[in-house]
């Protein structure tokens, strides 16, 4: 067994720095928040209009006016700030968010990202993902190394519609950590109990070790 989902999130959390403003995507990325050291101040942005996102509410704290970008009920913190959608995306698109961590359907070796639709099958929409990957200073993808049917998700080229071209900086999967530099993919870390052969077998993308 390589990295578990928890370990992937823990690894992703190591990329955070004190004082960072971070946007976490829906799903697994949300869990990264659980691995921030107490000594560190990280402020989470929710693109529907909030900085300083708190944990989920207790049953008696639920407030219909207070949700995250995944439409889940959440809470505020002492440092929270609310703003409108235009202001929120001015912040995102203007490069003020240090880091975005999000999921993916496919990532190409040049940093192309696909995570918003499967033509004829799944039409979720891009939501704020296209804005995030275009505007945020650094983009980390957190995803399973392979799809449920075993097919590779790290590809030579994405065949699904792109969310952004050449936008991914780092990919963390259950098998390792990759970085995209100068349009090329580098394997920087191998998860424990994972061999280079295994990762080669399960990856379509060309990567430099």
């Amino acid at each position, binding site marked *: 067994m390589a990295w578990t989902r928890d370990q992937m999130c823990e690894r992703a959390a190591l990329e955070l720095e004190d004082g960072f403003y971070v946007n976490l995507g829906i799903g697994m990325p949300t869990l990264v928040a659980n691995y921030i050291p107490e000594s560190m101040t990280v402020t989470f942005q929710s693109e529907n209009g909030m900085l300083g996102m708190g944990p989920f509410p207790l049953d008696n704290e639920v407030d*219909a006016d207070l*949700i995250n970008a995944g439409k889940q009920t*959440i809470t505020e913190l002492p440092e929270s700030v*609310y703003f409108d*959608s235009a202001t929120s995306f001015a912040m995102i698109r203007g490069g003020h968010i240090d880091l975005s961590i999000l999921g993916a359907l496919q990532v190409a070796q040049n940093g192309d990202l696909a995570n918003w639709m499967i033509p004829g099958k799944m039409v979720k929409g891009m939501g704020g993902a296209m804005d995030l990957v*275009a505007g945020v200073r650094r983009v980390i993808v957190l995803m399973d190394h392979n799809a449920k049917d075993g097919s590779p998700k790290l590809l030579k080229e994405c065949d699904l519609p792109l969310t952004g071209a050449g936008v991914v900086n780092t990919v963390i999967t259950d098998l390792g950590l990759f970085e995209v530099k100068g349009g090329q993919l580098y394997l920087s870390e191998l998860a424990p109990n994972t061999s280079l052969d295994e990762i080669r077998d399960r990856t379509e993308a060309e990567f430099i070790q």
Partner: protein
Amino acid sequence: MSESKKVFSDAKSALDGLLSDGMTILAGGFGLCGIPEHMIVAIRESGVQNLTVASNNCGIDDFGLGLLLQTKQIKKMISSYVGENKLFEEQFLNGDLELEFNPQGTLAERCRAGGAGIPAFYTKTGVGTVISDGKETRDFDGETYLMERALTGDLAIVTAWKGDKAGNLVFRKTARNFNAPMATAGKVCVVEVEQLVEVGEIEPDQIHLPGIYVDRVFEGQSFEKRIERRTIRET
């Protein structure tokens, strides 16, 4: 003084004379949070047809803008997220509903531009994706950007927490979302508020949207404020 000219008694009277087939409506809200729920019902009851609706989402099957999908009053949506609305996805895949996907930030900025007299602006969002199909790209300082056009509507329907009789608005928490930028981009803007107060009851430094953008305002009775994904922690 006559600022109460803007005040109406309910959704139906506030929308009187403003609805027509084929019009474009900008609808505030994100998911089910901060949606103009009373006006959506009134629009359904009016029977107006062939609407183009710009809204980040399209409600759920039986609440919010989903109510106008049920009755097929919407011809086209301009949205960033279909999400879990089955009827939306189904009508789109069937070809019954046109859908113009806008990245969420592009949708918000297009409305802000529409209200601000900016006919077009450039953004990096969507470069190299299907969003750029048919749009101009242009390089500035070595980076490629898309040109996006402003969005305006015949009518903006928005919701606020508190509003005074001059139309000055205060929003609450994340219910602010698209309500503010969309209010500025409607040729006419109608607002439903949870609390209608007298002019002077809101601090001038704490008003989120000045009444100049608001043509009509009414206090909604008993907001349902349905929650799409109630998520709680145990301790």
